[in-house]
């Protein structure tokens, strides 16, 4: 085929130009193919067309221009190609060039908007937080540089098994000079370089395979400030404890001072009594006067001899008070000595004794203590008059119920046939009262 038969040079130049264009088209198609095959499967079909057609045209151009088409197959193709009008070949090349240009553009846009595993890796490597995603069994799906460094510093090994690494962190079997601590509810790993890393773990439950994500975040500044704050708080608490103790001692000292003042008064009175004795001995007096002087003397000496009394046990105090008021407290079983049981039972004794004296008028308060199934049961009853109707629970009884329930127990009041209070308390209870 000759486009310009009259001018062989122009004709050859045109063919050379077309050959060059198709060469570029071919190279473009190869590059496009290389890009498209990385994408979704259907795009490979797209890639076939721009490769085959330019290849064909390139072949024809080479054959025609160099006149090396000696093979029969090539001759026949050349013959067919030579029969095509020149404008058609030119138009086809232009359309193909346009199609390749559009495809390149779309590939460029796609590449810019698409996140590849490599781009994720590059991004995660640049963040200060350590991330490690692994499958059950320990196979690592993804990790970043910060986590690799952390693993090496914390365990002394390179990060190769996610599960083993996570277990090492959880158990705290770390390198010497590294330690695992809790900051509130957050586990924290403190490395030898004094950096602190908060540890968190998450399971991606929507995945078919349960991928676990292990994260470590650098919280060195927060950790150090928290430690400083704790240290200050401990010092403040210690000072406050000492202050409270000192103030209790001051109260005692004040009381002691009060006693001392009273003793001084008694001492003065003693002096006055001794003067009275002297006067009595010198001038005589009646036996009544003598007895009065000796009574004063005895009283003063008693005052000076006696010291402060020791605090009394709560049960003993109730028993002693009841006895003074003519009430006998009979206890069957063993009164608990542990808290909060003791406090609750002493309060119950107080309440029952008060109510009995106010309303029932008896002279015996019976307390029966039994233990069964990790429960301690106490029944309080008296020999006084029985109540006319239902007992209204207010004041002391309501307080007793609140105290019992705070201790994890229950309180039942029986009004008929005889008044009784039943307390059921768990034997082992944390003393939160």
């Amino acid at each position, binding site marked *: 085929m000759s486009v310009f038969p009259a001018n062989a040079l122009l004709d050859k130049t045109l063919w050379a130009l077309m050959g060059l264009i198709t060469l570029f088209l071919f190279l473009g198609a190869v590059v496009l193919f290389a890009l498209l095959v990385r994408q979704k499967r259907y795009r490979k079909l797209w890639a076939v067309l721009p490769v085959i057609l330019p290849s064909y045209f390139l072949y024809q151009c080479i054959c025609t221009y160099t006149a090396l088409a000696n093979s029969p197959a090539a001759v026949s193709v050349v013959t067919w190609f030579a029969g095509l009008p020149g404008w058609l070949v030119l138009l086809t090349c232009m359309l193909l060039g346009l199609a390749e240009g559009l495809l390149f553009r779309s590939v460029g846009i796609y590449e810019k908007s698409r996140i590849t595993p490599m781009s994720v890796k590059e991004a995660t490597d640049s963040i200060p937080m350590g991330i490690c995603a692994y499958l059950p069994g320990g196979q690592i799906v993804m990790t970043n540089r910060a986590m690799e460094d952390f693993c090496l510093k914390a365990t002394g090994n390179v990060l190769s098994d996610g599960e083993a690494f996570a277990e090492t962190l959880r158990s705290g079997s770390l390198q010497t000079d590294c330690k695992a601590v809790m900051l509130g509810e957050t586990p924290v790993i403190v490395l030898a370089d004094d950096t602190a890393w908060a540890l968190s773990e998450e399971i991606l439950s929507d995945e078919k395979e349960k991928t676990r994500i292990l994260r470590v975040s650098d919280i060195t500044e927060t950790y150090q400030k928290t430690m400083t704050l704790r240290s200050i708080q401990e010092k403040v608490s210690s000072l*406050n404890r000492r202050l409270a103790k000192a*103030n209790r001692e001051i109260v005692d000292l004040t009381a002691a001072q009060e006693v001392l003042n009273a003793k001084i008064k008694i001492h003065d009175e003693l002096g006055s009594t001794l003067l009275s004795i002297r006067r009595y001995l010198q001038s005589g007096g009646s036996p009544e006067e003598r007895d009065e002087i000796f009574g004063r003397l005895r009283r003063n000496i008693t005052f000076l001899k006696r010291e402060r009394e020791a605090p009394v046990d709560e049960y003993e105090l109730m028993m002693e008070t009841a006895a003074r008021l003519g009430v006998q407290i009979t206890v069957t079983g063993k009164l608990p000595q542990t808290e909060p049981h003791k406090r609750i039972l002493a309060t119950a004794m*107080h309440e029952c*004794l008060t109510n009995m004296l106010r309303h029932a008028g008896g002279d015996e308060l019976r307390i029966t203590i039994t233990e069964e199934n990790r429960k301690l049961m106490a029944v309080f009853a008296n020999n006084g008059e029985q109540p006319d109707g239902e007992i209204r629970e207010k004041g002391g009884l309501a307080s007793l119920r609140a105290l019992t329930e705070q201790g994890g127990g229950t309180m039942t009041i029986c009004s008929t046939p005889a008044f009784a209070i039943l307390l059921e308390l768990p034997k082992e209870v944390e003393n939160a009262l």
Partner: protein
Amino acid sequence: MPYKVLIVDDQIMSRQLFESFVAASENYELAASVDTARVADIYCAGGRVDLVLMDVVMKDGSNGLDAAAQIRAVYPKVKIIIVTSMPDPTFLHRAKEIGVDAFWYKEVQEAPMLEIMDRVMAGETIFPDQPPVTNLGFAKSTEFTERELEVLRVLAEGLTDKEIAARLHLSLSAVRYHVNNLISKTGQSSRTELAVNAVRSGITIPEVKKEE
């Protein structure tokens, strides 16, 4: 018929002093003399007490004012005289709130105890105009506001600003403001010195807790 008197004081010297007052008058007889406010209401329960002479701060941690409030609520006919040697002004204030019949400062009051008892049994209520004035650093006890005294009392218990704020339902900044005011008024060098000297002077008495 003589009035029956219950004496509640943890100091034996004071108790015996009051007992001697009771014994000295034909108008009174001793119902009981106890060293803790915890059982005061039990003695009142049987209707055997007409008058209670009660101290405020007891060494076992019980408080005469709490017991007085309980007795006043349940046994309104029983007369109550609060006796104390502590100049803490909140004691007097609270005693008035509870509605006790008289308030008597040991060793300071000029009127004799028996006279106070007679007047109370005759239906009078007797309160001193103000507590004895004591000094805390550069400041007199009368120079403190009620709120400052509240803060001072809790401070003396060894609580932190945050705990004081929670106890008194104040903001943290308000507590700091009051503490700074107290330090500045009294000229104390620190809150610890303030707390210790406040207790030592008797301006405030912290709640006495039993040793765990």
